[in-house]
């Protein structure tokens, strides 16, 4: 435990105050406001909000549209996470062999981190557009094969690909760092015992990467619940016929387009609960993290 401290506590108070004010204004107050809206309903002719208890939640949970958006969010989360984590893991473990061109590979796999979600969305929307470029050609050869503008499943596949592409770089950075924190001596010992490269990957590097793997997994799922807005809004706007209407997008639509603050707030609270639950799972895991080394 640390013992050397400064004594002027008023300076400490001064230092912490700005962040506390900002966090209160833009975090705690909005969160409590969301609670208030979620349990009340605005009167149609003015006159403030009335307490309605769990009615807003009941209304949402009995709404088929809400459940379909939950289901779509799960499909999106699992699809994009599986693709992004799988690809990043394979790339990282082979980049970590540090063959010739190691630095170039590394930069080549990190730069997509810098790209904004709407930019990714726009680029992918063009690439998969049935009316331009490669997909138009495909459609001429096989008529009506590809049309995400009308086919919901194809639209979902398209946003999953875009979401996964955007996430690969982030995962790659973490996997590579995780691999490089494995002591070289362990891998050398494996080599001395006659384990070849692939065997060492399977029996030493992958198991030791498990904590990073779970961390990345949870972060990806959480991000896909929150960060997907830019992609959905530029690519499909939730369509066709709500086939890509993810939870975040529905909250935005109900709140700002439909002006149903109570419904949107209740949905926000459910989403917050989900994100918090996932974070707790991750904290529990990290606490129990096994140290092999």
């Amino acid at each position: 435990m640390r013992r050397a401290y400064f004594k002027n506590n008023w300076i400490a108070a001064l230092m912490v105050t700005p962040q506390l004010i900002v966090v209160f204004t833009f975090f705690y107050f909005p969160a409590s406001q969301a609670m208030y809206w979620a349990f009340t309903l605005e009167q149609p002719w003015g006159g403030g909000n009335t307490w309605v208890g769990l009615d807003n939640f009941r209304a949402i949970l009995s709404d088929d549209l809400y459940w379909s958006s939950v289901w779509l969010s799960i499909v999106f989360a699992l699809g994009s996470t599986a693709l992004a984590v799988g690809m990043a893991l394979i790339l990282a473990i082979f980049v970590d062999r540090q063959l010739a061109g190691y630095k170039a590979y590394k930069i080549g796999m990190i730069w997509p981190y810098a790209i904004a979600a709407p930019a990714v969305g726009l680029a992918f929307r063009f690439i998969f557009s049935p009316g331009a470029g490669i997909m138009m050609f495909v459609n001429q050869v096989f008529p009506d094969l590809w049309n995400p503008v009308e086919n919901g499943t194809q639209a979902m596949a398209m946003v999953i690909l875009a979401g996964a592409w955007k996430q690969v770089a982030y995962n790659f950075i973490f996997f590579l760092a995780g691999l490089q924190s494995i002591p070289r001596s362990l891998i050398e010992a494996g080599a001395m015992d006659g384990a070849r490269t692939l065997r060492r990957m399977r029996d030493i590097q992958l198991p030791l990467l498990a904590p990073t793997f779970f961390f990345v997994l949870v972060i990806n799922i959480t991000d896909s619940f929150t960060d997907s807005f830019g992609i959905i809004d530029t690519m499909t706007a939730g369509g066709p016929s709500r086939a890509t209407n993810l939870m975040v997008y529905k909250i935005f639509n109900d709140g700002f387009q439909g002006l149903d603050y109570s419904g949107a707030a209740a949905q926000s609270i459910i989403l917050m609960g989900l994100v918090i639950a996932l974070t707790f799972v991750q904290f529990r895991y990290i606490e129990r993290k096994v140290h092999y080394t």
Partner: protein
Amino acid sequence: MIERTPILNIVTHLILASGLILLLLPMYLTIVAASHTLNDVIAVPPNLLPGDQLWVNLTEAWTKGHLGDRFLNTFIVAFGVMTGKIVMSCITAFGLVFFDHRLKMPIFWLIFITLMLPLEVRIVPTYAVAANALLPFQTLLDLSGITWLISAVSGIEVKMEWNLLNSYAGLIMPLVATATGTFLYRQFFLTIPEELVEAAKMDGAGPLRFLWDVLIPLSRTNIAALATIMFVYAWNQYLWPLLVVTDQSYAMVAVELGRLVPKLSATGGEVPKWHIAMAGTLIVMLPPILVVIFMQRWFVRGLINTDK
């Protein structure tokens, strides 16, 4: 490593090269589309080699999307978020690590819980706050009865209002209100040996002097890492500026991108101007990509320390 693995090496290069191609292909197709006329973009069979219209399209996207103004706005916001974040997280972590008081842990948790909920999740109520940033304090006063007290005593009705919609402050402040940087700084400050603090005290340096002359010079790498992460984060903001800005003189680049192509539901059969849209996308992507490539070393270290 130790042994020779010629076949596996070839396989490794094949895997990495195909990964690289998968990551670069969308970028390449964007560049190709941005360098043709619209007729060539929607031609069958598709053009897979860049054309000669790149500069024409880039200039048209630049003027048509008012990207000059948008760039300026985005730079201002990114710079504001960067400095705000660096200064605030540095002093907060300083106050939490180098002093001993009873409220230390409660404050720590109060701030760190905010890591869990990104802005997107609490977007609706945060918007209400942006419409009047003093609303939280007004509510506090109302609830605690101070408003009533003041109006009863002096007859003055306390009404505080500070509209943040359509302002740089409104764009910047909610983005600064998270704990990412504070966490990074705290982790770093905890590694500073106690002897350094004792030596500083021995030499008669107060806390502020210690912060300025010892900690800040030591945390240069941290500052570089945080600046990179925050620049990219702020530059790429989409949902928040979309809501807060209605006056286009405050618009940011990412939002402008969304406008280059009409929404899927609203195309009405007309072919979107893909060549211009892709040129705009290229322009908007460029600054954060450059920052990430140039600051790679610091930024990678910072990212890993922030989120872990």
